[in-house]
């Protein structure tokens, strides 16, 4: 229960219209995109500037109130679900792009800016902000930074952490700290920026960010290739890499995914096509044709069944259709899926898929795999099918085990949140975990900021 003095002080600080304690608002701030984890906060506050954030944190510190920061609320691991109650700090009003510094290829902006709006802003002047998660249209940059979001261009361009140059952060005690700078080369002090990136809102609240942008590639080409098996597709990927070509996007669909999409939208897949690669290369227009030729030749050496190239924007949309239709198509197999988001070293994807096939057989379940082949990120959908009975949760643990055996990571681009918190020890050994706990304690001695996330208390 929130202390009445705290409530009154909060109301005085931001005004009654920017904090709420009403039951219906508590429902509206009880979730993110994770299907299971929900918890109501006891209050919600919407600060407008860093001074307010700082004052709110001081107040929370004084009254021992849990604070859960929240951006677009589009996360999949319950990262902004207030599992211990307390207040939600809604960062929606921090939605300004403060400076587009074209000469230095960077943008200074507030965390509530929707990623697509940042991308559109720099696109106007021929620049690109590369991280491109599926939620780009509605996720905020602050959330992307806090979760170190990935996306479909990660294979060539990397993930969010590669683009964050500096941050302004409010610590749990109300201190405002600044990390990094506008400089590409900067070794002045510890690299605290990267400590905050991916910290899932457990160390501080981001109030401003300096992000890097790059020149927009002149052109891009899109193509798909199908193979009999994912092993065959994997050989093709190795062959493509051996040519020196680095696609910007390299997505894959496994047999179950291909079949589901074929059934749902009929994109023309033949029964023998058990794996699909969707690839894009970008760069200068004159160089791309030869890159496409190299990719095609590599695929042909590895037994490609069908190779399609997009000649127009419409063609490109056509090729993307299968990938985009996937979620919808999988709903035809089952409405309830247990999802996971894991990462393995790229060359081990075929091994991981084999292990997943074994798990599917062991538990008599359906596992659909798709994701970002180029960066080793597999999205795993598991189900017992329509009317197939309850899902054997042990299968999920077996997936985690398989990932660890292949030196993979239990979370790739969706964070740990409160959903995977009990599994972190699979990847992080005890001495390392102890260091992480000390870091948390240093930043947040009372453990008030986003409690219950990332790791268990020691």
């Amino acid at each position, binding site marked *: 229960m929130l202390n009445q003095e705290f409530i009154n002080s909060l109301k005085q600080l931001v005004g009654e219209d920017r904090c709420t304690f009403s039951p219906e608002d508590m*429902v509206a701030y009880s979730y993110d995109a994770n299907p299971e984890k929900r918890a109501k906060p006891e209050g919600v506050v919407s600060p407008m500037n860093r001074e307010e954030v700082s004052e709110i944190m001081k107040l929370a510190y004084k009254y021992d109130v849990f604070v859960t920061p929240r951006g677009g609320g589009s996360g999949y691991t319950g990262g902004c679900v207030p599992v211990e109650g307390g207040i939600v700090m809604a960062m929606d009003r921090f939605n300004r792009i403060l400076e587009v510094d074209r000469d230095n290829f960077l943008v200074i902006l507030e965390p509530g800016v929707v990623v697509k709006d940042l991308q559109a802003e720099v696109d106007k002047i021929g620049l690109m902000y590369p991280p491109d998660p599926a939620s780009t249209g*509605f996720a905020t940059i602050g959330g992307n930074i806090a979760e170190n979001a990935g996306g479909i261009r990660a294979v060539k361009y990397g993930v969010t952490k590669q683009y964050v140059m500096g941050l302004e952060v409010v610590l749990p005690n109300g201190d405002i700290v600044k990390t990094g700078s506008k400089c590409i080369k900067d070794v002045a002090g510890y690299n605290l920026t990267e400590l905050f990136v991916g910290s899932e809102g457990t160390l501080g609240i981001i109030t401003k960010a300096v992000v890097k942008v790059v020149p927009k590639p002149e052109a891009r080409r899109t193509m798909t290739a199908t193979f009999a098996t994912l092993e065959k597709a994997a050989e093709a990927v190795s062959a493509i890499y051996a040519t020196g070509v680095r696609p910007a996007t390299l997505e894959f669909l496994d047999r179950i995914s291909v079949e589901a999409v074929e059934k749902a939208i009929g994109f023309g897949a033949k029964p023998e096509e058990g794996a699909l690669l969707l690839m894009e290369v970008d760069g200068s227009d004159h160089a791309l044709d030869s890159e496409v030729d190299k990719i095609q030749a590599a695929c042909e050496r590895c037994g490609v069944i069908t190779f399609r190239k997009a000649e127009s924007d419409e063609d490109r949309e056509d090729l993307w259709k299968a990938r985009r239709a996937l979620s919808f198509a999988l709903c035809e197999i089952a409405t309830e899926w247990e999802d996971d988001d894991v990462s393995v070293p790229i060359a081990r994807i075929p091994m991981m898929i084999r292990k997943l096939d074994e798990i599917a057989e062991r538990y008599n379940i359906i596992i659909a795999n798709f994701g970002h082949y180029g960066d080793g990120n597999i999205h795993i959908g598991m189900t017992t099918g329509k009317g197939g009975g309850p899902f054997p949760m042990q299968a999920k643990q077996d997936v985690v085990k398989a990932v660890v055996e292949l030196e993979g990571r239990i979370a790739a681009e969706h964070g740990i949140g409160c959903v995977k918190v009990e599994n972190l020890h699979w990847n992080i050994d005890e001495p390392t975990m102890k260091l992480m706990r000390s870091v948390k304690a240093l930043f947040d001695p009372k453990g008030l900021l986003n409690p219950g996330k990332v790791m268990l208390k020691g």
Partner: protein
Amino acid sequence: MTKQTHEEKMAVLLRLVKNEVDKCIRCGECRTVCPVFDDTPSERYTARGKIAIAESLARGDLEFNGHTRELFDNCLLCTGCASQCSSGARADKVVIAVREAFADEMGVPALKKAVAETLSLPRAVLDAGARIGSVAQRLAFKGVPGTSGLYRRFAMPGVDKEQYVPQLAAKSFRNEVRFSGKPGQPRVVFFTGCMTNYSMTEIGHSLVKVLNGLGVSVEVPQEQACCGMPMLASGEADVVRKQAERNVKALANDGDDVAIVTACASCGHMLKHGYLDRFGDDGELAAGLRNIAERTLDISEYLMTRVDRERLEGLLEKKAPVSATYHDPCHLRKAQKIVKEPRAVLEMATGGPVNEMRRPEACCGLGGTYCLANMERSKRIQAKKIDDAAATRADVMATACPGCILQLRDGIRRNVGTDMPVKHVIQLLAEAMKK
């Protein structure tokens, strides 16, 4: 019939919203398209928030009170969220279902009740009222320069002094036109909508002029009634059902090849989807409603798909191009997915490309009675629209919904910097025709 208990009613509500609750994965995609959320960034106003709160209400975890009602009243039913949602969740259906529950639990607010009661009156009474109103208006209101509208002379309860009020027609459109064309020609059935019938009759006359010019006769069924959108929005399902029955009688079973055309985005949405969303499993009524839905086309959709383009172009005078910007009515673009057709009509009418404003798809803020019940927020949404339109420096603003015209003219009156005329695309097309 025995009266339903509260629990039974909640079970019905839960059944109505369950499908959308199941579909919504709470990803937040709906946040980026909601005009209310854009104005006030609070999760309660998002579609996913409303869906979650609706479920809590139905389960009895939340109370039906002024606070919870406020958030369901704060929806323009623009259907932006539904058209954006990757999972196909229909928050607009949830809002309508919950408003019905509120109407039942707490009654319908007086203002909305008055609108619904007026528009569902028998035709003769409405006609007489409009006639008297048309005269009375001139005493109470001053004319707005350059438009066929008015604003108040004196203080009146419930009406903002700056509010643009449409001039009621001395003679309703349906009383002037019953059939226009020649027997034996191909014909369409024209569903006029209230605004065109009683106020902006020039839209109806323009539609008739264009279609007659193309050799298409226009039949105007006399017994057609208000489509029921305002009543649906205020949660009065019983009244909507009566309107639906009246319209089935007036419009249905006319032969599958005869199109029903409309020049009002909201009427079109209602005829195509609104009735079926609500009464789609309602036996005989549903069959009649399906018949109507299958035959209904927006006028620009009709012109672009059923008419020979060269013939249409042949009717038009070659003049110097006019710079026109276009506002997408929500119920045309988002609800009916009609985006290209009105633009194509507009380009024909003005002889040049559309001078696109920033975010042409953004809601104008009318939302039926929303603009009266939630005036401040409506005006802020409206102001953004007018700013975007004014920035184009176009000569004229076109749209395809009489409701939007009303709201846009009102906005232009309030926001200094532009006196851009606002017209329906069909009006501009009729004006471009050879004399």
